[in-house]
């Protein structure tokens, strides 16, 4: 690390107009030399006011210094310059979360995940937020930032071993959580029917694991990806809008369908139910969901 700083300092000395200032500032920040980092970043940004990565580093330094307002401003600047900057999205999520705005934090994380679905830090953060809302319940410990090139995990890392199983169990131990009773009257209305928005947030219904735990959030997050992929596929193959996806799997059949603009329906049916019937069942659920969404003014 010391070598790193030395090499970057030398590079910057040789060429003061170099963009290496951002890396140098980040290296200093990671070493805990926040004031030096801040000086380098501000100096570099004076020369390169349009350099998104520079503003990103500046935001992280402010965040380390506890100045969330300035951090927020700097990250907003990054997003102005580079709307898909994953580091800034996670940064905004972190600030929003610390400010108690879980919804804005979630949105920022979802955008980060839409850009890089494999961003594990964002995934973990999002899972934690969804599982543990309301925000007041969340611990506010500092985040592990070390290995990520972008700001560290914006919300506290989940408890050890929080895989899907642990997550299901962690759902307040009460199986599927209470949600709007949109599908009452349908078979297994809160265990096999899930309504979510296109960003992967649960709206109504619920999905239970075989052991009865709530896997709605996990399923919703994954399904948003399926929907995006279906849209892209249909578009590229000039198929127009997609209507349904039916997946026949070993132990269940799944039907996924868009419900109006912006919402998705997942229906899970036992393998024993013929696919045609599952489709009809899903079609009915879609009608119900659609009516409910309209009633919500969505």
């Amino acid at each position, binding site marked *: 690390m010391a070598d790193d700083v030395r090499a970057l300092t030398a590079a910057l000395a040789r060429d003061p107009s170099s963009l290496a200032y951002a890396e140098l500032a980040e290296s200093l920040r990671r070493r805990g030399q926040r004031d030096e980092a801040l000086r380098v970043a501000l100096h570099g940004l004076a020369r390169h006011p349009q350099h998104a990565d520079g503003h990103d580093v500046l935001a992280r330094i402010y965040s380390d210094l506890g100045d969330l307002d300035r951090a927020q401003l700097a990250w907003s600047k990054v997003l102005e310059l580079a709307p898909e900057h994953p580091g800034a999205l996670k940064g905004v999520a972190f600030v929003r979360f610390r400010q108690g705005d879980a919804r804005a934090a979630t949105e920022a994380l979802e955008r980060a995940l839409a850009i890089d679905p494999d961003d594990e830090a964002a995934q973990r953060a999002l899972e934690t937020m969804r599982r543990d809302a309301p925000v007041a319940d969340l611990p506010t410990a500092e985040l592990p930032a070390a290995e990520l090139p972008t700001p560290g995990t914006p919300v506290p890392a989940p408890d050890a071993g929080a895989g899907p199983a642990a997550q299901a169990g962690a759902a307040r131990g009460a199986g599927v959580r209470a949600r709007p009773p949109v599908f009452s009257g349908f078979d297994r209305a809160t265990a096999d029917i899930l309504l979510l928005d296109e960003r992967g947030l649960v709206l109504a219904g619920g999905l239970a694991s*075989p052991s009865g735990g709530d896997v709605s959030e996990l399923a919703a997050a994954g399904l948003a990806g399926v929907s995006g992929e279906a849209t892209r596929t*249909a578009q590229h193959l000039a198929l*127009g809008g*997609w*209507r349904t*996806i039916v997946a026949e*799997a070993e132990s269940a059949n*799944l039907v996924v369908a868009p419900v109006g603009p912006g919402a998705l329906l997942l229906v*899970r049916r036992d393998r024993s139910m013929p696919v045609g019937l599952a489709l009809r069942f899903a079609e009915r659920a879609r009608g119900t969901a659609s009516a409910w969404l309209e009633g919500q003014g969505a």
Partner: protein
Amino acid sequence: MSEELARALDRISRVRGMRGSMWVSADDGLPVAQLLMEGVPGRAVAALAASLVRKVSGSAGAVGAGRVRFVQMEAAGGTLLVAPAPPDLLVVALADGRVNVGLARLEMMRAAAALAR
């Protein structure tokens, strides 16, 4: 081997409404063998179908539904059908709205199963 693949495609393409069928490498999303009507973008179908099935399989796994054996995506302008043929291949078909999905599904599942044997 390649003859067997070609014969399967031939049978699938006889289903009414079929615009093309192909064997696709599941990991790569590349066509291995194909029988397409003119204008069907084979490489795009292969790449996108493989990607879609991968995402669907991931979701199915997450909700405890197990291994995916058949996927159909119905859209306004046609239907995309995929039958995974483990370990490495997919049978992929693109059809217009008139297709008899039941029949196409049977042929595709049969082709996938034959390959597994």
